[in-house]
């Protein structure tokens, strides 16, 4: 038995992203206000409340990746004077364009579709925004512990009592190294999971307590992004382009963004729906092809790629959200699927969810009741808030694309006009179930899909080179954090049925089928390339890949992403 230290906290938040940092900051402010008014009115103030945020990254913000355009609606509530308080905003959104791309040409949208209108919003770097929110939290007395991944939920019966953090110093064979330090049991009255998309603890919790029994399966997209430095101010800060169409095929959901940042940086990315059909599809390659379109190639000409990253996002929306509270625990932000898939925005919803969670936690602290009966007020609060209304309106958006792009655009258009009202709730299945076997018409004959794609190391880069620009680093001598449950399936079934699509959907060259020397092949997992995007956990057709956090501090470093 390993002896573990125990750390007692009142409120434990797992993951230092916009949802949890907003929750921690708002909660500390609410407690202060409550105690002040209690003192004045002669009531009972709360004892000192300890709030801790744990984060797997080496520093706050290092794993944060988003477009990003921020709708400031909730930031205005959290920090009303955020502009003067030094919020790192790149620029207010200025010139906006939407194009439908064909291979060489483009068709301008006559009007900007309402969901894509960004007037009043800001182009931001989520990494910088989150770092700043972290500073605000520390000023307010919140304890933030980077390099502490959550490994397991702690339960008392079915009540969540906290989180066990990951062990440090385990070698690749699972043995303790000289620097071994066992994970810590952090016990708390309320544990808030704001782990981001496809959270590994959220996954454990939702399964164990069956919190998704009434929800549709979540569907995802993966965003592939690069930052480019260009020699002149050809694309001023705040400029925005969105595109639909090429290079994605009609069965693939997605689109691109191009945002102007300060200091001649262009932020460019492609979101690819993780419910595509062709197992040969490679989101990284689609993005590389996208950059060769004349519109984009011209924009990036003589520029230099400076950063790379990838991250999945939940796009299923309203009907896919799980029950968000249980005894002693809450799930917020992307972990609970609160991203608006139609606007491709989840930062403002995460921030608002964090604030609503804080309001609920305050009531629990006052009442001394952390059961679902009390915390459950959050589910209602969220659904009745403007975030809930926004998500409800777009409840059928992604589902409309279940049958392909053209029908999807029409259905989604109707849905936008009617505020989400369609004759019926559209059905949806999990993204990986859309992948077609090689033996089917949609699955075959596209092995040459990227035959024309050449890497010139100027405009286009192979995966390994791109990974280098994500500054990803992991301790090499540790067990792989990508648990492939059954490696035989890769060889015995997957090669023939799907052609090992893990080699394609992973944007970081983690999965590689290698020759064993005796004429056979085996799956090699280059886990130290992993950029923590979660695509493999989501898209693997057999669902045998389980993403768990590596030793604390490992992963990409998304500075300024």
């Amino acid at each position, binding site marked *: 038995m390993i002896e573990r230290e125990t750390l007692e906290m009142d409120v434990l938040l797992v993951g230092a992203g916009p949802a949890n940092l907003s929750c921690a900051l708002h909660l500390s402010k609410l407690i202060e206000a409550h105690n002040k008014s209690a003192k004045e009115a002669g009531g009972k103030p709360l004892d000192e409340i300890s709030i801790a945020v744990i984060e797997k990254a080496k520093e706050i913000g290092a794993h944060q990746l988003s477009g990003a355009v921020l709708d400031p609606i909730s930031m205005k509530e959290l920090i009303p004077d955020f502009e003067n308080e030094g919020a790192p905003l790149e620029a207010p959104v200025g010139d906006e364009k939407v194009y439908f791309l064909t291979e060489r040409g483009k068709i301008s949208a006559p009007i900007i579709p309402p969901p894509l209108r960004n007037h009043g919003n800001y182009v931001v770097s989520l990494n910088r925004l989150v770092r700043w929110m972290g500073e605000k939290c520390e000023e307010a007395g919140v304890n933030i512990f980077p390099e502490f991944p959550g490994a397991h939920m702690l339960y008392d019966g079915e009540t969540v009592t906290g989180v066990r953090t990951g062990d440090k110093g385990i070698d690749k064979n699972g043995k303790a190294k000289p620097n071994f330090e066992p994970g810590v049991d952090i016990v708390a009255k309320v544990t808030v999971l704001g782990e981001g998309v496809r959270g590994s603890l959220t996954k454990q919790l939702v399964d164990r307590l069956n919190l998704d029994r009434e929800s549709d399966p979540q569907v995802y997209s993966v965003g592939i992004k690069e930052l480019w430095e260009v020699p002149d101010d050809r694309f001023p800060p705040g400029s925005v382009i969105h595109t639909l169409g090429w290079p994605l095929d009609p069965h693939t959901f997605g689109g691109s963004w191009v945002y102007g940042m300060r200091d001649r940086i262009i932020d460019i990315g492609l979101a690819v729906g993780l419910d595509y059909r062709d197992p040969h599809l490679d989101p990284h390659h689609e993005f590389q092809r996208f950059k060769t379109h004349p519109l984009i190639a011209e924009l990036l000409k003589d520029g230099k790629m400076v950063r790379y990253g990838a991250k999945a996002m939940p796009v299923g929306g309203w009907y896919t959200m799980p029950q968000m509270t249980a005894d002693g625990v809450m799930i917020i932000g992307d972990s609970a699927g609160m991203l608006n898939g139609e606007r491709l925005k989840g930062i403002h919803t995460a921030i608002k969810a964090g604030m609503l969670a804080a309001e609920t936690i305050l009531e629990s602290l006052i009442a001394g009741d952390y059961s679902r009966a009390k915390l459950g007020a959050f589910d209602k609060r969220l659904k009745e808030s403007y975030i809930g209304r926004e998500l409800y309106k777009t409840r059928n958006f992604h589902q409309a694309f279940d049958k392909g792009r053209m029908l999807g655009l029409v259905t989604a258009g109707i849905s936008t006009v009617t505020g989400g009202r369609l004759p019926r709730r559209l059905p949806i299945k999990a993204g990986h179930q859309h992948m077609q076997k090689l033996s089917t018409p949609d699955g075959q004959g596209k092995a040459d899909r990227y035959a024309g794609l050449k890497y010139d*190391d100027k405009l286009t880069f192979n995966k390994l*080179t791109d990974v280098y620009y994500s500054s990803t680093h992991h301790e090499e001598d540790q067990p792989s954090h990508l648990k492939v449950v059954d490696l035989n399936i890769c060889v015995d079934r997957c090669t023939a049925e799907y052609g090992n699509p893990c080699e394609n959907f992973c944007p970081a060259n983690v999965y590689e089928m290698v*020759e064993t020397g005796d004429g056979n092949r085996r799956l090699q997992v*280059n886990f130290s390339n992993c950029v923590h995007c979660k695509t493999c956990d989501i898209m693997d057709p057999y669902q045998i890949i389980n993403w768990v956090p590596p030793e604390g501090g490992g992963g990409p470093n998304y500075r300024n992403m």
Partner: protein
Amino acid sequence: MSEGILLFIEQRDGVLNRTSYEAMVAAQRIAAETGDKISAVVLGSGVSNVASDVAKKKVEVVYTVEDGKLAEYTPDGYTAALRRVVEKLNPRYVILSHTYQVRDFAPRLTSALGKSFVPDCIGFRVDGSEVVFTRQIFQGKITTDVRVSAEPPVFASFQAGAYRADLAEAGDAAASVEALQVDLSDVTIRTQPEEKFQEAKQAVDLSQAPLIVAVGRGIKSQENIAIIEELAKALGAEIAASRPICDNEWLPMDRQIGSSGQTVSPKLYLAVGISGAIQHVVGMKNSQTIVAINKDPEAPIFDIADYGIVGDLFEIVPALTGEIRKAKE
């Protein structure tokens, strides 16, 4: 009545462990504030030289415990001897440095005595007449103060580097060295020390090698590594590898060049079957002369190579080895 500070001095084969002087600094600073006197204790067999060295420092007295059973460190011998010393002297504090040896015997010693042990301290402060020890918890994220409410003696060990050994104060005159009579005749030593060994450090420091032959995925299988070893031997070069080779454990991890391995800049870097992914290139691009052998003319390694050979390494390498041998004859 407990009084004074007892400082444990660690030695092996008559050589003092330098961290004992670091612990001495802690002891001297505690003494400066509490007014306690410091006695040092050295265990072993033939430790008079160590004892007289320690006596030059600012301590009250140096005790030696000489016994054949203490000639080599054993947990049984040290625990029994120190237990008797502590019972005899009855100090308020016992200060040690947090070495592997101390980690081994101190928990056992203190639980045998039923006393408190504050391990791995990084500092202290004196609060009234009481010493409050500082130590780190949660992987060094939090620093805590530890107050001991139990009866003295209180044991505390200090982390290596918490104090600087060169700051140990010398005494005005040499302290007296006294042999302490401790009878260990009834003590059974249950462990038998084997010959000491040190696991080899990193076998090679590739950054010092003037000539390096590096092998990559193009070598295809472990058996083929032999031809690269032949080439390296003929050249008098060190052998290195790109990541896939070390991942497959065809060569040890300390031979890996690149962003997750070593960075080198030899006079000659001969890259065989290495495509030149940026992760590898960052580890060797400053080599004075780079020669690349690869069958793919598009391989990025050729972008940085001074000399490139496009072709089958299985033909080229043996031929090259032969030519080098001939030239050297």
